């Protein structure tokens, strides 16, 4: 929520700017806007900007690679950039940093425990110190991720990761996960309900049993 609040204004700003730049004359400025947005240190979401119609028009211009870059930052990772580096423009250092930060978020989507080896491969980092400095300064202190570094097990345990832009095909999985949560919560609540009923019942039986014994004791006393 914090990340979303912080970047909401930025998203608005870039979306408004993009809306005012259309047509062929606007293409170079849109390309510059894409570079600015993807370099901004506090912006990690790009689907709103991507959905501005003027951006889609870049496809048919000589600036179509900027649109590719924006898509990459919305959904892709640093590894994907490296595989397609020939088709894409060279990224400035701020963009490289941003894409690596986004790659960490993507990795955190599938696993809570991220091995150092995997992270070093994905982020092109050659040693543990460099990796940990990156995770501490650029991810944890940037507020996009929270977690603990484990040097013995050589892994990063993620406690929280900011959400990235979602592709349409990811929605089904999300719905499925939340349905599972719902059904698990329902069965847990039912289970608790049953346990409460059982506890009440046992308590009643215990009281009744105690009463029976006390009555028998009284009877015995009277007869004696």
């Amino acid at each position: 929520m914090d990340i979303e609040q912080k970047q909401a204004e930025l998203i608005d700003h870039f979306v408004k700017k993009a809306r005012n730049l259309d047509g062929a004359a606007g293409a170079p400025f849109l390309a510059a806007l894409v570079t600015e947005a993807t370099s901004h240190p506090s912006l990690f979401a790009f689907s709103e900007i991507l959905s501005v119609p003027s951006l889609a028009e870049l496809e048919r211009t000589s600036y179509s690679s900027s649109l590719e870059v924006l898509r990459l930052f919305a959904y892709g990772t640093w590894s994907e950039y490296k595989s397609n580096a020939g088709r894409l423009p060279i990224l400035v250092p701020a963009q490289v940093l941003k894409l690596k930060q986004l790659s960490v978020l993507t990795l955190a989507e599938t696993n809570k425990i991220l091995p150092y080896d995997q992270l070093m491969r994905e982020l092109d980092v050659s040693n543990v110190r460099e990796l940990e400095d990156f995770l501490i300064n650029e991810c944890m202190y940037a507020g996009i991720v929270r977690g603990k570094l484990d040097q013995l097990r050589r892994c990063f345990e993620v406690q929280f990761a900011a959400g990235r832009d979602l592709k349409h095909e990811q929605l089904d999985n999300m719905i499925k996960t939340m349905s599972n949560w719902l059904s698990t919560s329902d069965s847990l609540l039912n289970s608790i309900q049953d346990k409460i009923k059982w506890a009440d019942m046992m308590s009643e039986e215990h009281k009744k049993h105690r009463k029976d014994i006390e009555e028998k004791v009284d009877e015995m006393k009277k007869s004696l």
Partner: protein
Amino acid sequence: EEQVLVIREKLAELYESEREWSKAAQMLSGIDLDSGIRMLDDTYKLSKCVQIARLYLEDDDAASAEAFINKASFLVSNSQHEVLNLQYKVCYARILDLKRKFLEAALRYYDISQIEKRQYGDEEIDEEALEQALTAAVTCTILAAAGPQRSRVLATLYKDERCSKLKIYPILQKVYLERILRKPEIDAFAEELKPHQKALLPDNFTVLGRAMIEHNLLSASKLYTNISFEELGTLLGIPPQKAEKIASRMIYEDRMRGSIDQVEAVIHFEDDTEELQQWDQQIFGLCQALNDILDCMSCKGI
């Protein structure tokens, strides 16, 4: 005695005018304030004690100043003289600062920074003086030994709106948020410090250096489940053995939770809360996040 007193006071004035602070203080300290022959009122005695302490403090002589402030402390509780009381408070804070009792000094400086009255007789307290006191409070807190007590004072200062306008605010923010401080930030902070705050200690660390190492160690304990001595040394910029020693002292003094495995050469950090409690807190955080989403949805009419 009356004549001796007058001579001593005059000589002290002369020494003061020549900036010979300690000599002026010594001259005044020869006045017999507990004389059985003459009755001196408590306000006069308090004013002399405070004046002597202030003179010693001009030469950073905390030990001598402390002797007179201690005498003054018996008199100040009954004193109605606002200027003297304030001067006493400032002296006391400075003495604690010089003696490196940083946390106590911080609390006293903070107290001074919060005075509401601006006019004390002929003396006017300007905003700059209060700002200086607040800055001194922040500085001393940052230099104090890292641990729970310091964290409480940091929280108080960080939440004080006035601190956000201080030049020292960025480092206060980082220290409060328990972030690792890097060399450029530490060097910038060092420029604002007084000599005694950068003095060399018997263990060959400076006052500032040790405070920064301990802070960074505590920051590391929030980021790591465990860390090797070697990596910790690299992180702190000191040899691994020293890193181990400082960590062990902090654990022993209960300022940091953890354990040391000398065989594996690893420090294991422990949280203040148990695993199950942490789990509980994570679930709580999740429920809060869920509520935030639901609120967001209803705001947007979904």
